[in-house]
């Protein structure tokens, strides 16, 4: 038995492998995974982790408006707060840990230079309503980012203020609606392929349109005949994702645009998948009238566990006059923010949010763009597509690809290859968690049975892709060999086992309440 410097054995005891018989720990912690309760479950609610001076005056002038009832907000000292959140953080998967192949989400590396730049006081410590003469750098940055977005897409204008992709869809459809109304041509319907992301139909309905689905062909693209049949004088727009949510380029996109335009409708393109073509294909060359760009996908602003994002919308010349306020214009050497419906904004459809959009995300995105340049961005698209096709090629022998031919930036599989195993897409995904990978996007798009949508992005090395493919192939073999237990109960090695989502929805418990203690949910 070998000994370490202080004379303790360093090797596991031979024969004691514990597999299958791991005793539960007694206190709840598990090695590096600490058991961490809610902040509300701590003792003592009267401390604070912030030292503030005594207020110099009382609030007698506020009379009975002063809040008396306790709020029940616990305060943590700084060391306690640090531990609490660091412990929580360790229960998360992250792109910085391993491949995060969520299709349609573009989980790529988030350069830290961008974080540093966004925190420069000249960007972070600036108020949105300061006199414009004091924020020329910020307006200049917005203008420069706008220039990059217009050049990369080949479009004539861009509305910067939308705060995420779905907000961008809202922006695009509102511009389309305003353009029709300006002609006295109010229209009722929006056509959306069955494979569309949920935000597309949700946005169209939000804007007051009826949503009609367009069928898909056997090779995963818009069914042009069905589109032609459904187009008519009451159709306002079509919303098509390109590359689409099956990870395929819409080959007939130009023809689609022509059909749509001939019917007097507009072509809204969901640009969530722009990463596949950035620097290589300009949507403006495809007949697109409006397209949102998720800066938090293609241009690497971090997803932050759900946001914030940013969803600027590029617009064709026909839609540009209807762009919402505010926007930046350059007059001579001076940048000006046009904030109201007058002058060049006379036809603006309105306003989407309080200020000028997601400045913090603009800085990050521009930092990313300047770093890559036109040459690097083209390489981004090529590597993203190469990586996805590589995965597709390596896995296709064992797993069933949903469509033949090359894919764009994501590889889509269905669940035919699992037939007869009793294992579902969900089970397979949960087993991936045990192997240290985040599952792919599952059961989306809806048009493919048991869909598994894998988007590696360009920031994965070949070695990491190989490791991922090797593991998936081993898992696939295990599935086919009937090792169902590994899948049905998975994950076994994650911070938690599978969660009871039905219980959560049936008896919604959406906040901590003093009267409900831990474990009550188990009944």
């Amino acid at each position, binding site marked *: 038995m070998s000994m370490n410097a202080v004379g303790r054995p360093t090797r596991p005891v031979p024969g004691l492998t514990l597999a299958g018989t791991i005793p539960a720990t007694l206190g709840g912690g598990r090695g590096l995974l600490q058991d961490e309760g809610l902040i509300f479950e701590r003792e003592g609610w009267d401390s604070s982790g912030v030292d503030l001076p005594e207020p110099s005056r009382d609030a007698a002038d506020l009379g009975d408006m002063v809040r008396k009832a306790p709020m029940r907000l616990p305060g943590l000292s700084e060391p306690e707060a640090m531990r609490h959140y660091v412990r929580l953080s360790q229960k998360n998967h992250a792109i910085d840990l391993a491949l995060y192949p969520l299709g349609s989400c573009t989980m790529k590396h988030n350069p830290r230079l961008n974080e540093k730049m966004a925190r420069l006081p000249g960007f972070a410590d600036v108020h949105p309503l300061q006199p414009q003469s004091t924020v020329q750098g910020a307006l200049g940055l917005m203008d420069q980012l706008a220039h990059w977005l217009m050049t990369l897409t080949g479009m004539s204008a861009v509305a910067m203020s939308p705060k995420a992709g779905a907000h961008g869809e809202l922006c695009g459809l509102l511009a389309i609606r305003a353009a029709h109304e300006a002609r006295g041509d109010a229209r009722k319907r929006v056509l959306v392929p069955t494979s569309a992301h949920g935000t597309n139909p949700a946005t169209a309905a939000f804007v007051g349109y009826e949503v009609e689905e367009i069928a898909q062909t056997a090779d995963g693209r818009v069914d042009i005949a069905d589109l032609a049949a459904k187009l008519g004088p009451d159709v306002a727009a079509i919303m098509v994702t390109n590359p689409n949510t099956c990870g395929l380029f819409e080959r007939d996109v130009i023809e689609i645009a022509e059909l749509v335009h001939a019917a007097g409708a507009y072509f809204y393109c969901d640009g969530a998948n722009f990463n596949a073509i950035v620097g290589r294909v300009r949507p403006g060359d495809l007949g697109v009238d409006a397209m949102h760009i998720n800066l938090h996908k293609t241009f690497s602003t971090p997803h932050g566990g759900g946001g914030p994002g940013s969803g600027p919308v590029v617009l064709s010349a026909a839609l540009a006059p209807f762009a919402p306020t505010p926007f930046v214009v350059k007059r001579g050497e001076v940048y000006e923010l046009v904030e109201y419906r007058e002058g060049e904004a006379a036809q603006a459809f309105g306003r989407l949010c309080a200020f000028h959009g997601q400045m913090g995300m603009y800085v990050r995105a521009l930092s990313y763009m300047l770093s890559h340049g036109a040459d690097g961005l083209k390489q981004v698209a090529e590597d993203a597509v*190469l990586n996805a096709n590589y995965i597709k090629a390596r896995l296709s022998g064992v797993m069933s690809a949903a469509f033949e031919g090359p894919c764009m930036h994501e590889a889509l599989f269905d669940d035919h290859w699992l037939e007869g195993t009793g294992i579902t897409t969900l089970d397979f995904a949960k087993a991936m968690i045990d192997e240290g990978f985040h599952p792919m996007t599952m059961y989306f798009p809806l048009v493919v049975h048991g869909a598994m949508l894998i988007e590696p992005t360009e920031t994965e090395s070949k070695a990491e892709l190989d490791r991922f493919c090797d593991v998936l192939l081993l898992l696939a073999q295990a599935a086919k060999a009937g090792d169902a237990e590994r899948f049905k109960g998975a994950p076994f090695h994650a911070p938690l086992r599978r969660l009871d989502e039905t219980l959560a929805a049936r008896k919604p418990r959406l906040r901590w309440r003093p009267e409900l203690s831990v474990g009550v949910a188990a009944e």
Partner: protein
Amino acid sequence: MRYLPLSPSDRSAMLGVIGAATIDDLFVDVPHAARRDQPVDLPFHQGELEVERALSALAARNRTAGQGPFFCGAGAYRHHVPATVDHIIQRSEFLTSYTPYQPEIAQGTLQYLFEFQTQVAALTGMEVANASMYDGSTATAEAVMMAARVTRRGKAVLSGGLHPHYARTAETLAKVAGVQVQRLDAAIDGEAAVLDAIDDDTACVVVQTPNLFGTVTDVTAIAAAAQAKGALLIVVVTEVVSLGLLKGPGEMGADIVVAEGQSIGNALNFGGPYVGLFAAREIYVRQMPGRLCGETVDADGRRGFVLTLSTREQHIRRDKATSNICTNSGLCALAFTIHMSLLGEVGLRRLAAINHAKALDLRDGLMGVPGVEILTERFFNEFAIRVPTDAAALVETLAGQGILAGVPVSRLSPKGGMDDVLLLCATETTTSSDIAALVAALKGAF
């Protein structure tokens, strides 16, 4: 290129495995007319140093709030954020994770969202809160839409004290949804004017406290009047620190409370990203927009958290969803929740009291300036004054002297007839010498 791991030999080996001769073979589905072999007309890649230089040069062309006396509020507030907050939100596990769709490996995010929802509910005095919206203004627009769904009515009444940008955001959305918006005339102390506008078709009344002009309003009577007519009361809060000192909207009978959460944990950021807070009565939870995190158990009976009630959301309900929101403000919500956990009730109450005291100091200083009239009677940390000149021009002049003197109402409502009204704000970051500098500058200005 430093962010791209593939080497030229990797690329050719991979093409070999794929069975493609060149990368172009993978782009065959792109129509010929749209294929570009050459990079677009933009500069080529640059190193970190060069990028840092270029962006720093732009940053240097902005005057920062911390550079001198600063009195801007009106929907965005400068507060001190503890260093711990920014450190934690930059941890890879929070910064570089996605929406917590796989709860087994996202308990970190889910637990803080649950804590966030609990804090927001406590702060607003409401029963439930969601996991964040884009910002306060979009949350307001969504609240109006929600009220129309709940009541099945088609009219929204907006007070004249509602932030004009919030009002326009709500109007933009309401118009296309067929909800008629009645916006009352701007009034310093006029939230109660909504009482006269409530009728049988009113889905909601939207009031703001403290309002745009800083006025603090007890909305209890408005809640009662709205509810008596079957309408909902939506209370908007743009300065969430105020809730550490002022009665919670829930206590006053609000049905929905929406707020801008930027003040806690988040920088000014020239307007975004911010974090919208959305809270409501529990009976309306199934009509709420946005994500909700709920408690449950795992297969071994251990407590855990999941996203829940998603049958309201776009990815399940598509065109029948309560909202189209998907990506929200997760990381800003984390910043909020960390800062709030550090403050606790004790710290929040004190922070609010300090803000209020500073604003009283500011008001007292301005009362000594001949020609300045204080317009707001009862306020938290911001108030309106009338100046004997054009307020926007005055602000511009003082900016030239290194003082950011506040927000002229004309910036938010041009042609609103309030060109001589200026909104000023003081927070814990305001010093007595800042106030003295402003007072001295104003004395010399007119």
